[in-house]
């Protein structure tokens, strides 16, 4: 399997993030190939969310580099990173609670994308992609946590991202719903968006990708196919459980 046919859109090099003395990221290096979906898994507390936080500029790293499309973007401000074409969702959803669903998306469409045209179109596109068209005039605070996660995704989509970092969007969904979300993410890939999807459910990852990275204790411990992963001893020990 050749990894670099389109080249890497995101390169992470020796990234370190410390909280006090604790290293949540301990020199992680990782590449994400353009146009693909990569799965990111690992035991709880292994640093997946922290990685997304650093890449999206929400946290500043202590060391290491983040390179996007050949350009170093380490530790620059979130809104600039958004303008460069990266966006993300939150594991614990963070919608703009007092705003309506549509306003949530509108503000991202207006401020988030470089291309200022076709704002209305982009709003409609995001709304229909996440399937919240019917709830557009509802306040975000009245949505369930799952819907709020989708809304986070909708805001991210409205900024026209080239790279989308998705943090556990499928947690707590029924099998049927999982399938729908998987189709949606695949659809985004079709449209040319590169995705990094953090998820614990290997079955779900299996639906959208065949390559996963497994992290443990702030480092990458495995990269390869899902099947290989489920046979890897270390992965079983720390992540899947015996």
């Amino acid at each position, binding site marked *: 399997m050749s990894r670099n046919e389109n080249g890497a859109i995101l390169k992470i090099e020796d990234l370190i993030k410390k*909280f006090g003395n604790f290293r949540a990221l301990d020199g992680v290096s990782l590449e994400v190939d353009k146009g693909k979906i990569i799965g990111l*898994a*690992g*035991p*709880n*507390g292994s640093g*997946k*969310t*922290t990685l997304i936080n650093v890449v999206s500029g929400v946290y500043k790293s202590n060391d290491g580099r983040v390179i996007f499309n050949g350009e170093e973007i380490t530790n620059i401000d979130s809104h600039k990173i958004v303008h460069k074409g990266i966006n993300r969702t939150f*594991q*614990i959803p963070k919608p703009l609670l007092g705003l309506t669903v549509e306003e949530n998306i509108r503000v991202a469409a207006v401020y988030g994308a470089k291309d200022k045209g076709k704002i209305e179109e982009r709003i409609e596109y995001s709304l229909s992609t996440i399937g919240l068209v019917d709830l557009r005039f509802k306040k975000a605070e*009245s949505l*369930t*946590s*799952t*819907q709020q996660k989708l809304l986070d995704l909708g805001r991210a989509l409205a900024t026209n991202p080239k790279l989308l970092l998705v943090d*556990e969007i499928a*947690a*707590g*969904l*029924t*099998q*049927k*719903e*999982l*399938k729908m979300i998987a189709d949606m993410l695949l659809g985004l890939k079709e449209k040319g968006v590169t995705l990094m999807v953090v998820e*614990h*459910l*290997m*079955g779900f990852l299996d639906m959208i990708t065949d390559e996963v990275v497994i992290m443990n204790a702030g480092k990458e411990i495995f990269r390869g196919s899902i099947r290989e992963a489920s046979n890897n001893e270390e992965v079983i020990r*720390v*992540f*899947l*459980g015996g």
Partner: protein
Amino acid sequence: MSVLLNVTDLESGYGLVKVLVGVNLKIESGKSVVLLGVNGAGKTTLLKTIVGLIKATKGKIEFDSDDITKLKPNKRIEKGISYMSELAIFPNLTIEENLELGGYFKDKGENKKRMELMFNYFPDLRKFKNKMAGSLSGGQRKMLGVAKAFMSNPKIVIMDEPSSGLSPKFVKKVIEVVKSFHDEYKTTMFIAEQNVSFLDIAEEVYVLDMGKITFEGSVTDLKSNERLREAYFGVA
């Protein structure tokens, strides 16, 4: 067997929005019950109404043959309910303090023993026990929530999606905990959960749809219903 939790004709919601429209359920003492439902069906709302975080607009909730519909949440908890909400932690307290609060009604010695037990299931919690719970990762918070729910010795444990966000290894651990308490203390379990693995321990399943219970029965019954099987077990 006696009925521990009896919900009849329950209605509730948020302001003018009605979410539950006549829910009926009877949970027998000592049973493990799993509540299924698509997103937005009202599972969280149901659990919150049972513990009193949301006021019931109609209907009746009986626990241990007492009518608790009008009681304040803390009075309901005192009666022997343990509740784990979706984000069940005190962010500004340490993990240890969080756990102690789970056993708010118990003496200190017992507390220590239980805590030790939970630390064995979830070693991360021991490792970070003096850390603020607010700094934990999503999955670690869930572990803390689960551990906290079992700190007291309740008659019933009500949990809202205990496994979402947990890595497979810890999903198994949570199931182990539930099983062991169920077996050892005959604790009744009422768990809103979508993860199929939980159905292995479910003695009874409810399906909530559009604010109503639309299915009630054993896992085998559930599997024999084609529509439900597709929704909750996947096509495969």
